[in-house]
């Protein structure tokens, strides 16, 4: 493509964008001579260049559009239809230009449809056009005026309405083509009549009258941020800027007939475009210069290389301790950082450029949807990186369209709701720390949570029970789900359900976040936060299977060393590795395994380091083998052929020249339970539960047992919920049992009124405790709920703790302790079942293996660790070998060195002198008792007295406790 054509394309592209914006402004402000002149001139230029370059299609289109605009200049009414037609023509021109760019030739085709329409409109009689103008559209007529002091100007209306809230009267234009203009409605209190405004405006001194300085005109009303169409480049801007600069007073040197632009409307523009002073004014121009984007990119690359090289030098300096390098290196580092910052700035552009097209979008949407929508933009000059700007352009457009389509109601609905007829969509951008925040707020009808929850269930994304526990904010997040749309009809604008998830993905791709807040009936706010710069980040260098990777520092919350046997140890739940970190369970992703690195399988490795990371609300840990240091790296995008791998977000060259892949925590998070989308909610529910635990709410299992009243038991006590076949219930000794997981489990009815079925399904609530289990027979399991447990009435029934109001219903709270002994007598009586670690050790000495076999289980059941010995020798050996014996239970009837002898030997050892000893004997004689007393034997128990033995052991514990 030759340079001429290239230049043409660039310039024309810019012109077209400008004309677009200007047309929309013009439509709202048709008396604005200056805007019209600009548009006219731009179109004329386009036409001229097209002719010069031999582009007939474009020339013809531009010519037709120019003709129509000429008519406007001559006083033709500016109807919405006309403007739409011109906009359509512009679109067509853009299409052709795009094709031209691609193929360096105009595409084949005819534009007779548009040209015909344009010509028809140009040739039409102004009167007929006026009469047939579209309903509801404002069609202010252009006032071609004479230089008379009293001109009607447009209303710079009250703050909430548009400047175009005017209509022409039926007064026929005076000879000079005058049209008086009037407000269509009554003045609101505080508003000033048009004529007075006009007079004030005329009387205010203009820039002509004073040297150079742009006056701030004291108009009583202010228009909020009108769109800034102008790009930064001065040349084009300076020309267009004639308009705002001429705000003050008619520029007399031009045509004798000048109409007045809307006074206040110009004020903010003049304010916001300080650099865009008219050529006629002596206002200092902001020096700008047009630079090829490629040049900037090149600069950026070079600076990145410089950063890398600096890193390399730093690396070397780190290794060698040569102080000679340190100082200049520091200086270099400093300079590089500044250069980096400076170049980054060149890539900064005001977000207004992304917003350029939006007024047009809203305008089109308004007419398409038949709604009245106003777009307010604040913070258009907030700057952000060019790359980021590119990425968010489309998402922003989509969200605006969404708000217009789904958010803002039609005029009738709004009136009924007591809202102003015109809906407002507000865009607000501002800097906050290292991020830029963009808000898109509408005052529409907000999210319909009912519809959303129904859609969630129908799409199977969550169960009804889960939804009940969700907050509105959590439900709102579902609209970012792929394929999710609660729109009943899919309009051309939105509703296909493909938009919002793409929006979220795109924003997250650049490290940003999207949030929603919505109040039904009031409106919705989307908040987008994006990091300011992309290219250079701090990263943690880690290794897995001897390969190094980089993890962006922003995603690293914590680093935990994990080792078997240490405080932080990887545990497995159903084979999935997790790490318990401060009472939270973190899912662990072993990076070696996930990436399929060689050797990762063979070495499952539960040792290494866990990088704790968080994506959205999903927390997880990445298990790596080693951690090196943090380094500032230049992020280079992944090659196109590798971009599809979700695990990596790019690559970089480290200080030592090695190419290292940058891990994308988003990609890893997806491995943790089928996508962050889903797990987000899981974790959030957990977070919610954590929060609610602060309010001391408990999870309870609610069931019916005996009648219609609900009963509940804390879920934490429940082991399992089962439904068994009642036919399997066996009756032993008059008590119902069932074989359950290889053991016999007794069944206890939750209420005496419950009849245990003999066939059919029977619901059970299983409580278990170590070896013992019990099945509580219930009629029906109702629900699992979270509520604050506030036991109000304390019943005097042993099987109930009392009653509480759960979910608005009186529920009896079951006293589980009552039921347990009904299952197993010794469940709660006797020695409590202890944690095996804390179990005391009993040395059981008895020559009879039968007795040893009989007594061991009893002692074990009582929670003791049992060591057995067949005789005195074994016993002594055991005592010496195992220092943890807490008590001895000895048969004193043993032959040979009888038990007494053993005990004597035991007592002889100093450390064992206080060891509790319980003697077992089948016959207790007075001599024996005497002997026992001498030997400080705690108790004499008959051999068959099992419960007595257990009780005695418990007593010795207590005694020791007291003694200690």
């Amino acid at each position: 493509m030759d340079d001429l054509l290239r230049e043409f394309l660039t310039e024309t592209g810019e012109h077209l964008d400008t004309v677009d914006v200007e047309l929309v402004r013009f439509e709202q402000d048709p008396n604005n001579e200056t805007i019209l002149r600009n548009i006219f001139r731009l179109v004329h230029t386009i036409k001229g260049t097209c002719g010069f370059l031999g582009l007939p299609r474009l020339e013809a289109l531009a010519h037709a559009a120019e003709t129509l605009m000429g008519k406007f200049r001559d006083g033709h009414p500016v109807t919405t239809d006309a403007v739409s037609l011109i906009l359509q023509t512009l679109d067509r021109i853009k299409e052709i230009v795009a094709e031209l760019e691609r193929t360096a030739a105009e595409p084949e085709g005819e534009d007779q449809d548009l040209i015909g329409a344009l010509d028809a409109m140009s040739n039409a009689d102004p009167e007929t056009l006026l009469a047939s103008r579209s309903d509801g559209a404002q069609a202010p007529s252009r006032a071609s005026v004479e230089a008379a002091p009293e001109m009607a100007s447009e209303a710079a209306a009250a703050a909430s309405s548009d400047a175009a809230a005017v209509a022409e009267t039926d007064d026929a234009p005076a000879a000079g083509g005058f049209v008086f203009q009037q407000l269509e409605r009554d003045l609101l209190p505080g508003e000033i009549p048009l004529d007075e405004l006009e007079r004030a405006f005329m009387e205010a001194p203009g820039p002509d009258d004073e040297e150079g300085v742009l006056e701030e005109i004291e108009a009583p009303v202010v228009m909020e941020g009108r769109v800034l169409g102008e790009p930064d480049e001065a040349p084009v801007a300076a020309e267009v800027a004639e308009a705002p600069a001429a705000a003050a007073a008619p520029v007399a040197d031009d045509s004798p007939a000048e109409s007045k632009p809307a006074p206040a409307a110009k004020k903010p523009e003049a304010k916001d475009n300080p650099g865009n002073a008219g050529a006629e004014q002596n206002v200092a121009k902001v020096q700008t210069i047009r630079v090829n984007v490629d040049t900037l990119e090149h600069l950026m690359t070079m600076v990145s290389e410089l950063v890398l090289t600096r890193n390399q030098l730093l690396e070397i300096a780190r290794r060698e301790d040569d102080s000679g390098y340190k100082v200049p290196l520091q200086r270099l580092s400093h300079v590089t950082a500044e250069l980096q910052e400076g170049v980054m700035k060149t890539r900064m552009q005001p977000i207004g450029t992304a917003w350029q097209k939006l007024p047009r979008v809203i305008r089109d949407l308004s007419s398409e949807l038949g709604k009245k929508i106003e777009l307010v933009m604040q913070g258009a000059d907030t700057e952000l990186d060019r790359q980021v700007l590119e990425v968010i352009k489309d998402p922003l457009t989509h969200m605006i369209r969404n708000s217009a389509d789904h958010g803002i109601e039609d005029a009738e609905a709004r009136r009924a709701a007591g809202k102003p007829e015109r809906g407002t969509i507000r865009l607000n951008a501002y800097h906050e720390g290292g991020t830029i925040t963009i808000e898109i707020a509408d005052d529409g009808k907000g999210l319909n949570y009912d519809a959303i929850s129904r859609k969630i269930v129908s799409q199977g994304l969550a169960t009804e029970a889960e939804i009940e526990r969700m907050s509105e904010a959590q439900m709102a997040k579902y609209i970012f789900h792929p394929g999710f749309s609660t729109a009943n009809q899919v309009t051309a604008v939105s509703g296909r359900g493909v938009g919002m998830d793409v929006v979220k993905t795109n924003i997250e791709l650049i490290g940003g976040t999207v949030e929603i807040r919505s109040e039904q009936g009031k409106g919705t706010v989307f908040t987008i936060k994006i990091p300011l710069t992309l290219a250079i980040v701090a990263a943690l260098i880690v290794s897995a299977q001897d390969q190094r990777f980089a993890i962006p520092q922003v995603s690293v919350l914590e680093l935990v060393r994990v080792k078997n046997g240490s405080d932080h140890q990887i545990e497995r739940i159903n084979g999935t590795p997790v790490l318990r970190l401060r009472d939270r369970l973190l899912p662990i992703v072993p990076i070696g395994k996930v990436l399929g690195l060689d050797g990762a399988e063979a070495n499952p490795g539960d040792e290494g380091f866990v990088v704790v990371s968080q994506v959205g609300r999903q927390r997880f840990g990445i298990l790596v083998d080693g951690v090196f240091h943090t380094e500032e790296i230049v992020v280079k995008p992944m090659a196109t052929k590798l971009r599809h791998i979700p695990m990596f977000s790019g690559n970089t060259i480290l200080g030592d020249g090695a190419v290292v892949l940058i891990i994308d925590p988003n990609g890893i998070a997806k491995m943790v339970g089928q996508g962050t989308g889903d797990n987000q909610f899981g974790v959030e529910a957990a977070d919610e539960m954590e929060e609610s635990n602060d309010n001391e709410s408990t999870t309870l299992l609610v069931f019916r047992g005996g009648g219609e009243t609900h009963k509940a038991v804390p879920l934490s006590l429940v082991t399992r919920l089962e439904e068994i076949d009642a036919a399997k219930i066996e009756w032993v000794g008059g008590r119902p049992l069932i074989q359950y997981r290889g053991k016999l489990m007794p069944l206890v009815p939750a209420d005496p009124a419950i009849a245990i079925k003999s066939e059919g399904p029977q619901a059970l609530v299983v409580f278990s405790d170590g070896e013992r289990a019990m099945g509580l027979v219930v009629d029906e399991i109702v629900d699992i709920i979270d509520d604050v447990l506030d036991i109000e009435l304390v019943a005097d029934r042993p099987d109930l703790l009392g009653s509480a109001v759960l979910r608005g219903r009186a529920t009896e709270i079951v006293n589980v302790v009552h039921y347990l002994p009904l299952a197993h007598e010794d469940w709660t009586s006797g020695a409590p079942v202890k944690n095996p670690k804390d179990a005391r050790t009993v040395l059981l000495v008895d020559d009879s293996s039968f007795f040893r076999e009989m007594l061991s289980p009893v002692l074990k059941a009582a929670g003791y660790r049992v060591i057995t010995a067949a005789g005195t020798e074994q016993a002594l050996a055991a005592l010496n070998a195992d220092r943890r014996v807490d008590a001895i239970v000895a048969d004193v009837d043993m032959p040979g060195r009888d038990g007494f002898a053993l005990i004597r030997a035991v007592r002889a050892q100093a450390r064992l002198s206080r060891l509790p000893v319980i003697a077992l004997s089948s016959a207790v004689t007075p001599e024996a008792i005497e002997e026992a007393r001498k030997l400080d034997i705690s108790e004499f128990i008959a051999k068959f007295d099992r419960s007595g033995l257990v009780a005695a052991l418990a007593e010795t514990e207590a005694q020791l406790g007291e003694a200690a």
Partner: protein
Amino acid sequence: MMAANVNDAGRDGRAVQEYEEFVTVMLGDQMFGLPIDRVHDVFIASSLTTVPLAPREIMGLLNLRGRVVTAMCLRRRLGLPDRDEGAQDMAVGLERNGESYGLLVDSVGEVMKLSTETHEASPVHMDQAWVKLSRGVHRLDGRLLIILDVDAVLAFDAESRAA
């Protein structure tokens, strides 16, 4: 960059001879030619960073004077078996769509300037896959030089091949 086609007009007005220049590379015994205007570099492929989960043909990433270059194995691309371990690959630097690639080959031969007269269509018995990746062959003494189509070689749908 020399033009691919060099007009060599005969002094005595006979027919104009056109030439094409190629960088030749070897995969085992088979010689391939790459149009010289597409070849930016020839270098030894050292310290390759493997990319986990990458398509088979992509061996990894290389650092070439500060640029990250995607290393693609020509053997795998053509469906040939890998070489034995330990052999050092050479890489030919190519570019496509603004991205840099290093095509890994067994060795790099000389630059050949060949007349278009010996340029023929691919033989009928050649593997269809190879036909798609080449732009014909040159008849040389006793051997065929397969001319590779750089764009075709470097273009494959990465996602559909992803492991």
